[in-house]
């Protein structure tokens, strides 16, 4: 009886196994290369559903965490085989990251003031498009125990949380306070790196008030109470979105932007209390 495991048979099996693995690996690699297969134009997502694939990283302002999170899930189910990962943070920080070469595909900023330097540095492909607007609101502890009803009323607060001035929520808050002729002493202001951590100072911390966006105030639930700021004192901000020049998946990036601008995308943003772009 011949030995089924004779050395020549064994080496044949080994070669066959290696070839099979190589074939699998090549197939996987081909399947993942996105640029070759996508042929989309910027509009008309439905026609190109089958062609979209790959991964993109969207650097987005932290105020977009809820809305973009929802949109991301919806987009990925509508386009199986695609992955949209998010890098949320303060728009100022995100802009710096992109200028210094961070691998983002799309940049969604909470203000045009953070998008413009990135454009001037030549890191944006095409022209940014405004997809939403936001304005400021004060958030206080549940039940508003200190009775703060306006920016002027913030002098009743022991500690007020405001975003750092390099974040859009920060510089618009400073502008709103100037418009209302209100000065809060530095010793009463704690600075938050982005709007989410600023809000957290009231919802989970001991700050008495925070100046955040309307979208944050509307989503705070039982953890806080929103105090509106009248239009005369308020400072709205426009959110631009654009493809980053060094994107590795232009088609998917443009499809994402189109999705955000589509009625579906705008409906989700509206539900999160963002104002329309106009």
């Amino acid at each position, binding site marked *: 009886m011949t030995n089924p495991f004779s050395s020549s048979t064994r080496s044949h099996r080994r070669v066959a196994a290696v070839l099979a693995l190589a074939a699998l690996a090549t197939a996987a690699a081909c399947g993942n290369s996105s640029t070759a297969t996508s042929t989309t134009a910027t509009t008309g997502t439905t026609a190109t559903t089958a062609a979209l694939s790959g991964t993109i990283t969207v650097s987005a302002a932290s105020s977009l965490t809820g809305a973009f999170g929802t949109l991301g899930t919806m987009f990925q189910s509508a386009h199986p085989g695609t992955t949209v990962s998010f890098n949320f943070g303060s728009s100022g920080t995100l802009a710096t990251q992109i200028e210094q070469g961070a691998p983002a595909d799309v940049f969604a900023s909470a203000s045009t003031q953070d998008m413009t330097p990135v454009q001037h540095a030549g890191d944006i492909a095409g022209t940014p498009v405004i997809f939403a607007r936001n304005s400021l609101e004060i958030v206080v502890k549940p039940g508003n125990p200190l009775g703060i009803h306006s920016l002027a009323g913030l002098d009743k607060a022991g500690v007020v949380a405001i975003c*750092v*001035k*390099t974040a859009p929520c920060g510089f618009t808050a400073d502008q709103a306070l100037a418009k209302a002729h209100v000065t809060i002493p*530095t*010793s009463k202001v704690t600075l938050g790196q982005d709007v989410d951590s600023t809000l957290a100072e009231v919802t989970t*911390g001991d700050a008495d008030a925070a100046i955040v966006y309307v979208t944050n105030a509307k989503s705070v639930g039982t953890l806080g109470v929103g105090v509106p700021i009248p239009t005369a004192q308020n400072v709205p901000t426009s959110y631009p979105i654009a493809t980053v020049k060094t994107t590795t998946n232009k088609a998917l990036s443009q499809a994402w932007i189109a999705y955000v601008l589509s009625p579906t995308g705008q409906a989700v943003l509206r539900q999160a209390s963002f104002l329309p772009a106009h």
Partner: protein
Amino acid sequence: MTVAFLAIPLVGLLTKASWSTLWSDLTTPVAVDALKLSLVCSLWATGLSLVLGVPLAWVLARTRLPGRNLVRALTTLPMVLPPVVGGVALLLAFGRDGLLGRFLYDWFGIQLTFSTAGAVLAETFVAMPFLIITVEAALRSMDGRYEEAAANLGAGRWTTFRRVTLPIISPSLVAGTALTWARALGEFGATITFAGDIQGRTQTLPLAVYLALQDDEHVAIALSLALLAVSVVVLVSLRGRWLGAVSS
């Protein structure tokens, strides 16, 4: 290669510094406030660590109290806990709605969060274990016969401690104190979570660096250099002693 791994970031810091504007960067209001506050808070934290930590180290090393091992584990915990987690824990304990904090606030009107005292508390929490560990190790490894001899000659416990024990462990005590101070100076996560980021009140050097990174990068680098200089001075003056060795 390991040395390069450790050295290259420091070299990067030195080369990217804006040496011509260094003095003006270090004298901006934000920088001056941060430097003063860091000095005050870290010295207070070190003082508190000495007052609270040395007796505890003595109890752990010299007595046979039950539950010593648990206490020792508890005192080491802040060393391994991520600092921001320490901050969250402090918030849950000493915040206005916290376990203990609610009584401090409701009965005495004391609020530790967003205060300089809060920053000191956060720094003490993370830095004191370094002192306890160093001093306990020194006490354990010293020759107990000196203390016995002193007792035999009629010295009381406190006199023995003051005139026999302390001089013997002083190198380790000094090393432990320096390490504790450096750790308190560099604390970020617990401070920003518990005490917030208020210029002049709780915005210590590391917090100011974090802020300046977005705003004035060269100020951030200047402040980082200040911290680096302090760390180098501490390490050079310790000259390898902080590992707990005792000179007899």
